């Protein structure tokens, strides 16, 4: 397989409403930034991959109107990958309700309710506290304050304030959950010598792994606790990248955490700590900016969540750290970075980026 690397990244300003731009203009903003970062013009790009969530934007077949063809590695030398979400233009609540019409559509509790259900099992088994979860929320919004693109930026957020925010679904408070954002992100991926020409420190793709699972909420026992897709994908990616101890070998992680408790559960699934130790890991500040393994210097999904772009943002932010272009959110001397993706417990993606091919 040819060595390929992320050579450029671009993001929009993310906000709850971007009334100033249409959906194509939103995508354009991210794409221009990514191409400029990679010192490329559209003519340098062989293919484009674009993703979103149709019903969250109220549009069908987005690739048609953004105007993109798509190909994967092996046939092209340079690929532009774009994700976008414009929740303010669609009806996410309706989109979330379009589940199996015979089984769970009539007994749905929405995204927050579904998270809360699995959180109740995680809390019951692991004994993590509300305060430990709130610490994740504080870390995310504090990190976001150093990220000019982030939607929710709160350098002064406190654990008390998280716990005092209203309960959406027991035990999840408003500030435990990700927001809905308008935004787009793009990365430019190039092969071999082209990558070297377009970035002095390309973020080489060391490993990728994706796993899917059965789709009904009740199919997977203790989903948050076990998360077999993420565990299996991480094990495969670590093997490919030669990672024995992720806490030691990784320098930074950008993980897709839809709520605070999910970040704690992912620490265990990703092997940052033994099962049951996630609460202690966050208490010890290991995953803070100054800790041994900073997790989500960008502020994560908890701070910025244009759903169709949130996965691409993870890859962009992980690559940015290897490029050394993280600005105020830069972690010093990053050689190995992790990015993860996630979809309603039904799938997980893991990508490892490194500073050498």
């Amino acid at each position, binding site marked *: 397989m040819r060595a390929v690397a992320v050579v450029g990244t671009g993001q929009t300003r993310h906000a709850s409403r971007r009334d100033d731009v249409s959906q194509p203009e939103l995508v354009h903003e991210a794409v221009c930034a990514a191409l400029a970062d990679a010192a490329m013009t559209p003519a340098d790009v062989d293919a484009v991959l674009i993703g979103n969530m149709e019903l969250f934007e109220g549009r069908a077949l987005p690739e048609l109107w953004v105007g993109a063809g*798509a190909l994967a590695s092996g046939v092209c030398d340079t690929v532009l990958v774009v994700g976008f979400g414009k929740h303010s233009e669609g009806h996410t609540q309706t989109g979330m309700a379009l589940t199996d019409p015979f089984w769970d559509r009539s007994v749905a509790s929405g995204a927050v309710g579904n998270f809360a259900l699995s959180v109740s099992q995680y809390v019951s088994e692991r004994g993590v506290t509300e305060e430990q979860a709130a610490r994740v929320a504080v870390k995310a919004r504090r990190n976001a304050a150093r990220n000019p693109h982030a939607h929710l930026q709160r350098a002064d957020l406190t654990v008390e304030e998280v716990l005092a925010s209203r309960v959406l679904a027991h035990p999840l408070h408003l500030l435990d959950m990700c927001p809905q954002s308008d935004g787009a992100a793009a990365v430019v991926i190039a092969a071999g010598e082209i990558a070297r020409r377009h970035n002095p420190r390309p973020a080489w793709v060391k490993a990728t792994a994706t796993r899917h699972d059965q789709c009904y909420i009740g199919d997977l026992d203790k989903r948050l606790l076990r998360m077999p897709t993420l565990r299996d994908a991480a094990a495969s990616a670590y093997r490919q990248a030669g990672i024995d101890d992720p806490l030691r070998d990784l320098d930074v992680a950008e993980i897709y955490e839809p709520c605070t408790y999910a970040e704690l559960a992912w620490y265990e699934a990703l092997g940052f700590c033994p099962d049951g130790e996630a609460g202690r890991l966050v208490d010890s500040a290991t995953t803070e900016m100054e800790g041994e393994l900073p997790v989500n210097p960008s502020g994560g999904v908890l701070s910025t969540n244009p759903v169709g772009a949130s996965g691409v943002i993870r890859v962009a932010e992980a690559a940015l750290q290897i490029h050394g272009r993280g600005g105020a959110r830069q972690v010093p001397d990053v050689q190995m970075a992790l990015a993860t993706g996630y979809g309603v417990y039904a799938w997980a993606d893991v990508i490892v980026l490194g500073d050498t091919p």
Partner: protein
Amino acid sequence: MAGTGVSGPLAVDTRSIPEMVLAAAEAALADAQTDFGNIDAVVTASVDLHDGLTASNIAVTEVVGAVMKPETRIAGDGLAAAAHAACQIWAGAYGTVLVVAHGKASMADQDSVEQWAWDPITIQPLGVGFTVAAGLQARAVMGEGDPEAALSRWATVASRRWQAVGVGSRPEDVLASPVTAAPLRALMAAPAADAAYAVVLTGEPQRRGPVLKGVGYDLDTHAPGDRDLASWAGLGRAFARACRVAGSDTGAAFDIVEASCRYPHEEELVAAAVPALADSDVAPSGGLYRGVAPVAAGLGRLVDTVDALRSGPPARALAHGTWGPAGQAHAVAILESAP
């Protein structure tokens, strides 16, 4: 190409989407003399608004055997999904990949679904679907020429396609059928249908299966007013890409062609966009006239191409898929008989 499987097309398939998909996937695996255990990854094609489901791929994850495996969903024609799978194999990522596409036109009024692909400010308020886009395109293809001659030509082509699939519509029946979007007549259009298609692609040498030599795809600009509607330029570019990947000359002729033409004027667009096809019959099987399953039909063309290559003498073949209004997006696959 290790195996192919088909479920449908039927005007109305009363089964659920997972049942249609499972039937096609099992048929493809049986044809490839393999089972789900030997599949490394799956690529599916579906569109949420067609299926009335958010993240429409998760409804088929189990029946395509993708539990604890990598699955990729393409929100476009199934032939594009096959192209993606081929790239995964060529890149060395996976050894054997199952590709599945489904479309169930009977689930919803297609015009109202397709409207949602248009720009909400400039086009959606007009309330037009893709049928209207096809009418505009047919008019553009007609150009300054004699309208009667074009209509008569198209009626003859449509009649030939209908005959190939066992429907006895004569050219005069086609011309006498109601106008849908002028100059198009109802019987010029291939009928909407429900179907699922599956193919098994593998990097392992195959004794029987033809070899996929090249793939390419391309999209034109979105707004009909921004493109030259009288041309499928995107198909020309997709074809050139597929030739580049296959290492073949764009002028080399094909023995078998299965193009996705829903209307007779689209066959003329194919011939103009790809001169190598100008003398070919682009739908010897009757093509889409057996039924057009949304975002699945192109994978059906690939299945027909493989079947034809397997049953005939050594040959070179082309399969084509298209999606979006008036042929905005095109995918092309170039195949050769097994050596």
